[in-house]
């Protein structure tokens, strides 16, 4: 059976624990709850002195698509600047998760991206 939304890359990413968790004493954090389904995500990250993301983790309760997409998204942000994150568009995101469009699950796919777009700086770069 071919399930178009559920690409292998997303399924694998949703099971990947590398970026899952919470960073104690982060430089920035972001949090969002999807109002309609109550899925939520908490992102914490560390910025190095060269203003790039040196570590990033997320903790979420949500579906495969929101967890898988968040995992792929945050892996892509490692080593990038916060300005890069700010400018990162939905079209850029589609290329990473290898789907043609978000279809009816747009809010699931975009939970992580919408969260990190409103990050809050907590501490100085380390």
């Amino acid at each position, binding site marked *: 059976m071919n*399930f178009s*939304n*559920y690409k292998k890359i997303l399924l694998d990413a949703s099971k990947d624990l590398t970026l899952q968790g919470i960073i104690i004493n982060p430089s920035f954090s972001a949090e969002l709850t999807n109002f309609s*389904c*109550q*899925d939520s995500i908490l992102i914490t990250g560390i910025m190095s002195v060269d203003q790039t993301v040196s570590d990033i983790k997320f903790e979420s309760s949500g*579906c*495969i*698509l929101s967890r898988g997409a968040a995992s792929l998204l945050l892996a892509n942000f490692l080593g990038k600047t916060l300005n890069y994150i700010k400018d990162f568009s939905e079209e850029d995101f589609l290329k990473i998760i290898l789907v043609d469009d978000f279809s*009816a699950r747009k809010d699931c796919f975009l939970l992580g991206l919408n969260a990190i777009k409103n990050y809050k700086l907590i501490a100085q770069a380390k």
Partner: protein
Amino acid sequence: MNRHLKKSFSVFKLSPNLVYFDNAKTSYQPRYVLNKRSKLENKIEKLENNVTLKILQSKLIACKIRLAKFLHCNPDELFFFPQGSTSAINYVAMTMKIDNILISEVEHHANYLPWLANIKNVEILSLDTSSMSISLPTSKQLSNASLISISAKSNVIGNIWTNNYSDLKKIIELAHQNKCLVMIDAAQAILDPFFNLKTVPADIVVFSAHKIYGPTNLGVMFISKKIHTTINLPDQITETLPLISIANFNESLKFIKNKKVFGNLKKEKDLAQELINFLNTFEFVKIFSNQPGSIISFSIEKIHPHDLADLLRQQSIVVSSGNHCAKPLHDKLGIFSSVRISLGCYNDLSDVLKFKKGFIAACRFLGIM
């Protein structure tokens, strides 16, 4: 639920593989009902305004008579046509000057939020999760409350009243003894053959047309004549009513009667039982509906309902997932969302078989089988 009923709906001709199990959200309209609507629209386009109004007024009267038969009440009772049950509840919440109301834990947000926003004291009757039934109000609660607003059927767990609404009738009788009015949200129960104003003698009953093969954006609010002085009646001028939709709904009501949708509810129970028996074979499935009926909700351990629903949808099986606008009930059940199957008149055994196959394929894909 005869096989030939499917032929009355265009969608199954266009998508023969479609399994539509989301009738608690909205149902399809029969083809001939839609054709009648477009014929009526074409006809009145060519007529003068006063002739048009006369035609539509006669349809309005016919619809009210049919509704009275439908609910087993007198045709001169008061029927109003809001945009849906939600707007009807909002109307009552905003216009009735009361301080205390009783609702239940299983209510849809539409029967929750208007009261929280407008009424000072909202008391909530709790759900007994072992029997999936609502606790009876205490005499103190009844003497304090001016209104009870309660569902005749939950949009998540289905039947909550036993013995053909006899326990709900008992609550209504106790409420009336305490001079407390009763409003029933019948959005999910209105097609139940046992639901009518004899079995559930409420003062106000609201429901939406689009859930019973009628048009969208149209609801029905029955207000008993006995209470017409205690409540601000909606100011509905005939000319401003959605008369085309009302005429359309009149045809839907005819369809329900002619096609014996009511008479097929035994088959609906059989299909529900078949689905429950199937789901019960899996240890990882938890079913929340206690009685076999048109609504069955369940959750799967470690699997998000959206994922299962999406994987089923990709196999042309439409179910609902989420909290179904009943978050307090989900909190009570200790879950954040669920998968809901809701049956309609066009569902048959072939749909159940397709669901079984689709469910197994989805579970295998998710690695839990």
